[in-house]
C-alpha cells in the first residue's frame, strides 16, 4: 500500500508522468486525430493534391461502394480466423509448456516460442512465400497424399498471419496457466473430476481472460497487416494494402479507409472488456 501522497511526492509523480503522457496525447493520439480529420478532406482528382474542404464524401463512398464492403468483410473474417486458429494452437502448446513439461524444459520451450519474434517480419513472410510456392516444401509434403498446397491467396494469408502472431497468444495463455495453482487441479480431481472435466470446468475458465487478451493482439495485428498479403496473398485485397495503395493517390480516402479497422478494434476491445480480459493485460 503506498503512503498517502504528500505535496512533495505528488509533484514528483507529476514530473515523472508528464513526459510519457505528453507523448501519448500529442504524438500518439494526436496523429490519430489528424488522420481521422483528414478523412473529411477531399482530393483534387487532377493533381492528387489534398484540398482542405470539409465534406463526408469519402465515408459516403466507403459505405456505398460494394468493393470496399467486401474487402472490409474479408479482412474481418481473416482476422477472426487467425485469432481462432492461434487460440486453438496456443492452448495445448501453453498447457504443455506450463503443466506437462518439467521445470527444466520450461525455459528452452519459452525461448523457442520467443525466438521467431527476433527474426525480421519480412524474412519470415518471404520464407513462407518460398515454402508455399510451386516447388515449396508445403506442396512437396502434401503431394504424396494427392493434395496440393494452398498456393498464394486467402488461405496462405491466414496461415502466415497465424504463424506470425502465435507467440502473442501463447505468452498470455502460458502466464495464466502457470499462475493457476496446482491446488485447483488437485481440488477438482479430489471432488471426482477426470482430466477432461477438470480441463473444461477449471482450466479453461481460468485461461479465458488470457485468451481474450492474446486475441486483442492477434486480431488487431491481423486487421492492420498489409505486407503479408502482398507477399503470399496473390490477388487478395485486404484493407491494409488498399490503404497502402491509396495513400499516394488519395490520402483522405486512405484515412477514411483506415477508420474501419480503428472502429472494428474499438468495438472488439469493448466486447473483450466485458469479458474481463483487460484486467489481466
Amino acid at each position, binding site marked *: 500500500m503506498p503512503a498517502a501522497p504528500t505535496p512533495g511526492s505528488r509533484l514528483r509523480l507529476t514530473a515523472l508522468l508528464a513526459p510519457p503522457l505528453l507523448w501519448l496525447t500529442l504524438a500518439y493520439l494526436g496523429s490519430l486525430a489528424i488522420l481521422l480529420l483528414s478523412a473529411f478532406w477531399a482530393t483534387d482528382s487532377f493533381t492528387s493534391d489534398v484540398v482542405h474542404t470539409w465534406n463526408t464524401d469519402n465515408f459516403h463512398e466507403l459505405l456505398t461502394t460494394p468493393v470496399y464492403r467486401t474487402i472490409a468483410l474479408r479482412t474481418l473474417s481473416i482476422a477472426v480466423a487467425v485469432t481462432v486458429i492461434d487460440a486453438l494452437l496456443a492452448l495445448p502448446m501453453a498447457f504443455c509448456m506450463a503443466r506437462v513439461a518439467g521445470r527444466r524444459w520450461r525455459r528452452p520451450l519459452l525461448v523457442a516460442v520467443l525466438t521467431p519474434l527476433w527474426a525480421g517480419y519480412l524474412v519470415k513472410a518471404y520464407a513462407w512465400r518460398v515454402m508455399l510456392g510451386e516447388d515449396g516444401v508445403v506442396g512437396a509434403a502434401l503431394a504424396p497424399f494427392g493434395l496440393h498446397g494452398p498456393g498464394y491467396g486467402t488461405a496462405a494469408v491466414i496461415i502466415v498471419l497465424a504463424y506470425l502472431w502465435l507467440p502473442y497468444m501463447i505468452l498470455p495463455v502460458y502466464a495464466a496457466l502457470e499462475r493457476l*495453482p496446482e*491446488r*485447483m487441479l*488437485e*481440488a*477438482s*480431481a*479430489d*471432488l*471426482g*473430476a*477426470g482430466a477432461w*472435466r477438470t480441463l473444461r*470446468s*477449471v482450466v479453461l*475458465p*481460468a485461461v479465458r481472460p488470457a485468451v481474450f487478451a492474446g486475441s486483442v493482439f492477434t486480431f488487431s495485428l491481423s486487421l492492420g497487416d498489409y505486407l503479408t498479403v502482398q507477399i503470399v496473398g496473390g490477388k487478395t485485397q485486404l484493407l491494409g494494402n488498399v490503404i497502402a495503395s491509396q495513400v499516394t493517390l488519395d490520402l483522405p480516402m486512405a484515412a477514411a479507409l483506415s477508420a474501419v479497422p480503428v472502429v472494428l478494434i474499438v468495438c472488439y476491445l469493448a466486447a473483450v472488456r466485458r469479458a474481463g480480459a483487460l484486467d489481466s493485460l
Partner: protein
Amino acid sequence: MAETETRARTGTTTTRTAVRLEAVTKDFGTVRAVDAVDLTVRESEFFTLLGPSGSGKTTLLRLVAGFEQPTAGRIELAGDDVTATPPHRRDAHTVFQDYALFPHMSVEQNVAYALTVRGVRKAERLARAHEALTTVRLDGFATRRPAELSGGQRQRVALARALVDRPAVLLLDEPLGALDLALRQEMQTELKELQRTTGITFLLVTHDQDEALTMSDRIAVVRDGRIEQTGPPVEVYERPATAFVAGFVGTTNLLRGESAVRVVGRPGTYSIRPERILLTDPAEPPAGAAASSAGRRTVTGRITDIVHAGAHTRFTIALPHGDRLTVLRQNLTGLPQSARPDGEIGLSWDDKDAFPVPS
C-alpha cells in the same frame, strides 16, 4: 471425555477400518518424507496426525487423497486397495489449507461441484448444495463469489464442498491454520460437532496440539516421517511414549540423567507436567496433601520468572545445581506468600506424576 473413550472402544469391535496404511514409504528425490508408516483409522473416527512442520504429516494425507504415489507400501480405503487408484476415483475429499475454492464459480457452484461432475440433476444438486451450506451455516451466501467472503466463510464453503456428497473419509489439511484464535476455537467445536452428526471419518493434519487434543478421538504423533505414538488424547498427553511426544504434546518438564536423580530421586528420563506441580511455602507442608508422606516429592527452589497469562500463571523456578522447572497454576486464591519474583518457594508433586519416558 469418558463418553468419547467408550465410543472409541465399542467402535473397535463393531466397525471396520476406514483408512489403512501398510508400510507406506514416500521418497522425494533423496529425502524420505514418510518412512514405512503403518496406520489404521477406524470408521466414523476423528483421527489426527499431529507433528511439527516437515514431519511428513501432510505427505501422509496427500498419499491417502491420491495426490502422491507411495514409493513403497499399500493404502486401503474401506478395505479396498487404492494404492494405484487416481484421486478422482477415491471416496475421500480434501479440505485444503488454502481452501482451493474455484474463483470463477459461485459458492453454490463450488459446493455442488462433486455432484455436477457425477451428473446429478440440477434441481437435486442445488437442493443438496443448499443443505450442505445450511450445515455450515452459510445458506444466505449461495450466489456470492469466493473472493467476496471472509477467511472463516471460505473455510466453511470448503467444508460444505467436501461434505456435499458424503464421502467415506474427509481429509483436512491444517484447515484452521489461517483463522484467528477466536474463530479457530469456534471452528474446533463446530468441526467436532459436524463429525459427530455426519458420522464421516475425519482425518485431520495439524501442528497445533490444542487442536489435536480438543477434537480427536485418537492422535498419531508424527516425527521425521514416522509415527511416534498413537492413542486417545488423554493417553498421549498423560502417558507419552517418547521424550519427543512428551515435549510436543503440551509443555512439560523433561528430566534426564543427573537431573532426574536430583529432582525425581530416581535414574532415568521423566516427564512432569507443569500443572501437576503444587506451589507451597517452603517451610509448610503442601495444602490438602499429606505432609512429606511417601509417594510425594517435595523440593525447594527460587522463582526466577512469573508470567501472568490470564486464567493461569506460569512460574519458572530454579532449583539448586541449575535445574529448572516450569509450573502452571490456575489463578485461584490462596497463593503462597513467597510466590513473588526471587522468592523461596516449595514445590511438590505426586510420584505418579513424574512419568517415566523411554528416551
